[in-house]
């Protein structure tokens, strides 16, 4: 009976093997997607304009291999339509499959020479083909048949003649064993047990499993009964056996749980060694294997054969929960996840070594996790460590139970660690568990560095590849934010020259758009347009906050230096930082900085903040006053200078014009009037900037006005409305009113005419008194139920204030009209992208992701800020 369906692994490199004219292309087209087929003839045509130009063969195959490499890298099944009758040609392809950890498959289309030659003759472009070609290929094919298995092909289909070839109606794609993406857990992932039955039972019991040892009912029964907590399953990371006191019992328990669907298990190197032993292979008795052999001596043959079957069926690693979780005994690099090859299996069992041998005579482990960039969480064991620590979204939970450490479980998706201590040291480790740490102590810059977590030490140095070039950042609020390469270039310079240690930078504030331009006389901005915008966006309420004119700052502050070290991984830089929109330290005077932070800490303590929010750090978005504190030089060199130039030059001009006017020249009067108007404008302009300046000699001259509480330990506050933020921060401000300023605000119901009028009047009064204006925010921090993201805030600036933005003469006839042509659209677009990145950065930080992922967002905001957008908006 000819086969009607061929089974292949879903990710496979399929070689069609057959002479010219065997029908390979037809076969491929009939059974595979057109895009899955890579053909040597087609490649030849692409590089030579002629698919039979043999002189182009080297280039054609270079292209063929390149295409195959790209497809395999991206995890796509690929069919190679070439004769593939020569072993050398196949060797390159098998190597490609290996490089990308993909299984090679051979499908031989074996047709008699006569049929092949007839077909070739029927094709015009093959007329010139020599008579010797097909017989020669056929000879090569025949030789190949014997060696294919050796060459590394796992699946080989030999189809004899057109009948068998035509009989194939379907290709069945088998999922790889490692693919369990549909399996979402939850799981209790358990590290290396090594025969520690007692601790395993204790751990499982603690996790809510019920374990009952039952007398054996028959030879196949394993003698245990297990119940699991609702919906949960255990997931064993291998190395069930060796070294410890009760390997058979551990096997019995795990096998029972796997068979009854209460557990999954991946193999460890020790388990595979046991399998080899049970298969009758010669096995080295070192590393605790002798104990296992002794313990198994009293077990029945039936049990041993069950163990053999169980171990034989284990799959090297699993990809679970939609690809979000990967488990393997010794870890798994990103490019190997969900792939199948000898190298993948070896990596899963042994991990990676540097090739060196350490002072204990053991191979030096290569820390693949330090380079890991994958999205999937990788949970593994194999290398005993003193504590299970996260590094780049991977975690080694082998805490060396058998060596007297602990048996650790990771609850997934909770990311919660549960451990039980070893009852005793069952085996002395050849090298101490903390040898890595000891080694790093020798190299560490400061002894304190050892107090940092593995991730924090790793994060001491970011990688330039994570920020430069075009970056696409996925955020919760916007599916993707693109950072153009040239913007990243600008940000790299600012970040490198001016920014603080990136460990402090969890957030940079987004830019803020003004309201649309007002049509009212003498005004560019007015609250009406801001209210209209939010009404159009379906908002019922907004919060209007007084806009302070100072410097925007972000305050990151821990309760003490110890908390700063623990949470930010920063040593010797104080308990916190107050930094500007570009990540630069606000303070240049370290004494003033320390005093400022201490006062703020005191205020938080007085306000009971730490207890109330159960945290030892916080992140605030705020304005620091006065403007002149940071901008003194700018004010002197730019603002005051402009006023000085104007007040020195304009009176001279007015005097000369007055003199000319007495001569009765035409047109002088108008020119004089205009010059006088400019003189008055310059005066108003000087008054405008002076309002925001006062001398800063000490801390007593500074004021901090916080307006967002962004984050504390374990949580963010983007789910709280702005009235909550205002009230929460007011409570802190009350604790030290001479340093902290609560921001006046009002909640406005947009449909309530009186409410809107009152708010407008409030703005009018504020700005008439010289205030900068107000910020209008939707009531909720991130308004829900909308398809599009709503502007997080709009600013509405007063007429007087805008003089320092648009220049002294902006209200003069002819100027305001032209300035009204401004367009807020790209500014708004930018504000949304920066807002999404800002929120994402804080959320990532709070979730404890590696620093580079937080830094990408922060860097992204800075990069977007270099977009060419009218800075007056």
């Amino acid at each position, binding site marked *: 009976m000819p086969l009607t369906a061929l089974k292949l692994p879903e990710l496979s490199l399929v070689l069609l093997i057959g002479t010219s004219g065997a029908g390979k292309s037809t076969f491929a087209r009939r059974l595979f997607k057109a895009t899955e087929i890579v053909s040597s003839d087609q490649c030849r045509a692409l590089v030579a304009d002629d698919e039979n130009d043999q002189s182009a063969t080297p280039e054609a195959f270079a292209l063929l291999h390149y295409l195959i490499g790209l497809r395999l890298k991206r995890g796509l099944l690929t069919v190679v339509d070439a004769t593939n009758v020569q072993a050398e040609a196949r060797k390159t392809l098998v190597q490609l499959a290996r490089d990308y950890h993909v299984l090679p498959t051979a499908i031989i289309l074996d047709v008699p020479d006569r049929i092949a030659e007839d077909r070739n003759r029927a094709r015009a472009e093959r007329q010139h083909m020599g008579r010797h070609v097909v017989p020669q290929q056929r000879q090569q094919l025949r030789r190949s048949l014997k060696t294919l298995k050796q060459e590394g092909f796992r699946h080989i289909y030999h189809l004899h003649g057109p009948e068998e070839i035509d009989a194939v109606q379907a290709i069945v794609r088998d999922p790889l064993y490692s693919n369990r993406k549909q399996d979402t857990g939850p799981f209790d992932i358990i590290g290396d047990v090594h025969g520690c039955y007692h601790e395993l039972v204790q751990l499982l019991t603690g996790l809510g499993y019920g374990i009952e040892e039952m007398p054996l009912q028959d030879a196949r029964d394993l003698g245990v009964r297990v119940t699991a907590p609702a919906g949960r399953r255990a997931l064993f990371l291998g190395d069930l056996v060796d070294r410890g006191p009760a390997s058979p019992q551990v096997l019995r328990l795990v096998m029972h749980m796997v068979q009854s669907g209460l557990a999954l298990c991946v193999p460890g190197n020790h388990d595979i060694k046991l399998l080899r032993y049970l298969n009758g292979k010669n096995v080295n008795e070192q590393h605790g294997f002798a104990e296992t052999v002794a313990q198994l001596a009293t077990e029945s043959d039936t049990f041993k054969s069950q163990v053999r079957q169980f171990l034989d069926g284990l799959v090297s690693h699993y990809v679970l929960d939609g690809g979000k979780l990967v488990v393997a005994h010794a870890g798994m690099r990103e490019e190997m996840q969900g792939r199948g090859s000898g190298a993948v299996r070896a990596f899963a069992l042994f991990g990676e070594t540097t090739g060196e041998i350490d002072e204990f005579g053991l191979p030096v482990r290569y820390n693949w996790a330090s380079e890991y960039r994958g999205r999937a969480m990788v949970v593994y064991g194999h290398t005993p460590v003193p504590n299970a620590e996260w590094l780049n979204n991977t975690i080694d939970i082998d805490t060396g139970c058998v060596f007297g450490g602990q048996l650790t479980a990771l609850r997934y998706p909770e990311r919660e660690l549960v451990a039980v201590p070893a009852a005793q040291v069952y085996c002395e480790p050849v090298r101490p568990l903390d040898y890595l740490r000891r080694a790093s102590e020798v190299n560490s810059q400061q002894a304190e560095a050892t107090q940092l977590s593995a991730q924090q030490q790793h994060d001491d140095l970011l990688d330039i590849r994570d920020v430069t070039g075009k970056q696409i950042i996925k955020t919760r609020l916007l599916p993707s934010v693109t950072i153009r390469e040239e913007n990243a270039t600008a940000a790299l310079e600012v970040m490198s020259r001016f920014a603080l240690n990136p460990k402090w930078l969890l957030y940079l504030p987004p830019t803020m758009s003004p309201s649309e331009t007002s049509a009212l006389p003498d005004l560019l901005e007015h609250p009406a347009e801001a209210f209209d915008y939010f009404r159009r966006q379906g908002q019922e309420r907004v919060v209007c906050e007084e806009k302070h004119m100072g410097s925007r700052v972000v305050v990151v502050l821990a309760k003490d230096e110890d908390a700063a070290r623990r949470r930010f991984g920063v040593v010797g830089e104080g308990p916190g930082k107050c930094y500007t929109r570009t990540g630069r330290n606000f303070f240049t005077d370290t004494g003033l900085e320390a005093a400022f932070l201490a006062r703020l800490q005191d205020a938080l303590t007085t306000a009971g903040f730490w207890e109330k929010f159960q945290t030892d750090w916080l992140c605030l978005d705020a304005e620091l006053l006065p403007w002149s504190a940071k901008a003194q030089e700018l004010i002197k060199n730019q603002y005051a*200078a402009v006023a000085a130039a104007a007040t020195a030059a304009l009176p001279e001009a007015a005097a000369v014009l007055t003199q000319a006017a007495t001569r009765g020249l035409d047109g002088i009067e108008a020119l004089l009037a205009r010059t006088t108007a400019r003189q008055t404008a310059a005066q108003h302009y000087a008054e405008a900037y002076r309002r925001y300046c006062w001398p800063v000699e000490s801390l007593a001259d500074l004021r901090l006005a916080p307006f967002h509480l962004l984050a504390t330990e374990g949580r963010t506050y983007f789910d709280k409305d702005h009235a909550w933020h205002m009230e929460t921060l007011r409570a802190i401000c009350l604790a030290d009113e001479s340093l902290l300023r609560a921001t006046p605000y009002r909640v406005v119901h947009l449909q309530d005419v009186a409410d809107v009028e009152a708010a407008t009047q409030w703005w009018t009064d504020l700005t008439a008194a010289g205030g900068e204006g107000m910020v209008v925010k939707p009531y909720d921090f991130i308004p829900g139920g909308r398809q599009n993201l709503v502007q997080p805030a709009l600013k509405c600036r007063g007429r007087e204030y805008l003089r320092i933005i648009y220049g002294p003469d902006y209200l003069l006839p002819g100027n305001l009209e032209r300035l009204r042509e401004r367009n807020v659209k790209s500014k708004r677009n930018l504000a949304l992208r920066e807002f999404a990145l800002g929120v994402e950065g804080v959320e990532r930080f709070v979730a404890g992701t590696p620093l580079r992922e937080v830094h990408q967002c922060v860097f992204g905001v800075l990069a977007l800020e270099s977009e060419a957008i009218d800075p007056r908006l």
Partner: protein
Amino acid sequence: MLLTITTTHQPATDLGYLLHKNPARLQTLEITAGQAHIFYPEATPERCTAALLLDIDPVALVRSHRGPAGEGFALEQYVNDRPYVASSFLSSALSKAFNTAMNGTCKDRPELPDTLLPLEATVAVMPAAGVEQLQRLFLPLGYEVSTEAHLLDPTRPEWGDSRYYTLQLRHPAIRLRDLLSHLYVLIPVLDRGDKHYWINQEEAEKLLRRGMDWLPQHPEREFITRRYLRFAEFVNPTLEWLLEVDENATDDGFGKEAYPEAAAAEAGTATELLGQAGAVGEKQSLHDLRLDRVAEEIRRRGAKRVLDLGCGEGKLVRRLLNIPHVEHILALDVSWRELERAQQRLHVAEMPPRQRERLTLTQGSLLYHDPRLADYDAAAVVEVIEHLDESRLAAFEQVVFARARPGAVLVTTPNADYNQRYETLSAGEFRHSDHRFEWTRDQFTAWAASVAARHDYAVRVEPLGPEAAEVGAPSQLAVFER
């Protein structure tokens, strides 16, 4: 911005013929960024004054502005002194309004252009680094110079004087065209404004031609021409050649435009008012000395693959390219603008292919791990570390000494002990406004020793530059070897 020209020549109204502008009318011309009004506040036979009033349109001034985000002042093009001060706009208005006079032609009174007249010119207002600067520019040309200073902000007397002066020039006997060409050339020299408002190449060259008659004799000719070079860079690199100025004498590697005062201080001559020019010779020699010393060390070591970390405009690269055994140079700078300058200065685009292959010029940061930096024999880090915040040196150390690990690392930095020799530096002040720290010899040596110990390098620290008693040399070099 106002310019008046007064004469008491008899009859004074000849001024009208000379300027080719009728004293009885207000005339208005359109100029690049607004309007120029010409009128006569007085026109009697005894005394005649012509006024040129510029009305710069601030809204029209605005052009698309592109540049890195950061601590820069993005609003500079909107809030600025352009409408009020004498700038290159005045020069272009002069040439447009008084072209005939500047060329020395006068149809009606052909003898007038060559007549020496008593003339008086008032500029309101003129930006300048100080009264003395104005005097040094105009006194040699025979003017009597009087100035009126203006407070930066009368409500903040502690802020002192602004940089604006009402300038009055008097000359007993001068040709009008000479007065005009003096103003035409010297006004842009004094103006601090930069490329945003600059003009095209043709105009820049025209400006220089106006000065050719008198500039070669002017004692400040070097300063004057150098001030033009800052425009030339954006306009036409060949102007350098045109001016026959030694290319090496242009400026320091680290963004001198932003920090001219410090570059001057480093040469210890900033007391001189035209300090930047006067200082150049001496300053360059120190910077050149540093670069020569580092290049020599690389030559001595026979390094084949060399890193230039913080390459600036490529002065060290130029030296390295001259060392035959240097096979490849990776020159890195964090500033895109500096790299563009280096591209131009080194003529990278025109390099023959073999030379071209020896050099990679690219953006990079010394605070991020960068795998491109691995496998080099030597790295030069010349006057770079002091531009990093001290707290960021740990990251720099990781990048260079722990990860890149070149065979040798050459680090230079100023010697703070030497600063007392600079009269212009007050105690605790740095040589450069972007310096985050300046180390004494002990501090630098201690840092170098601890870095070397942590990363298995041997190190020696040596003075760089002429040594003085007690305080040592102005600069210092640490040579780390693996």
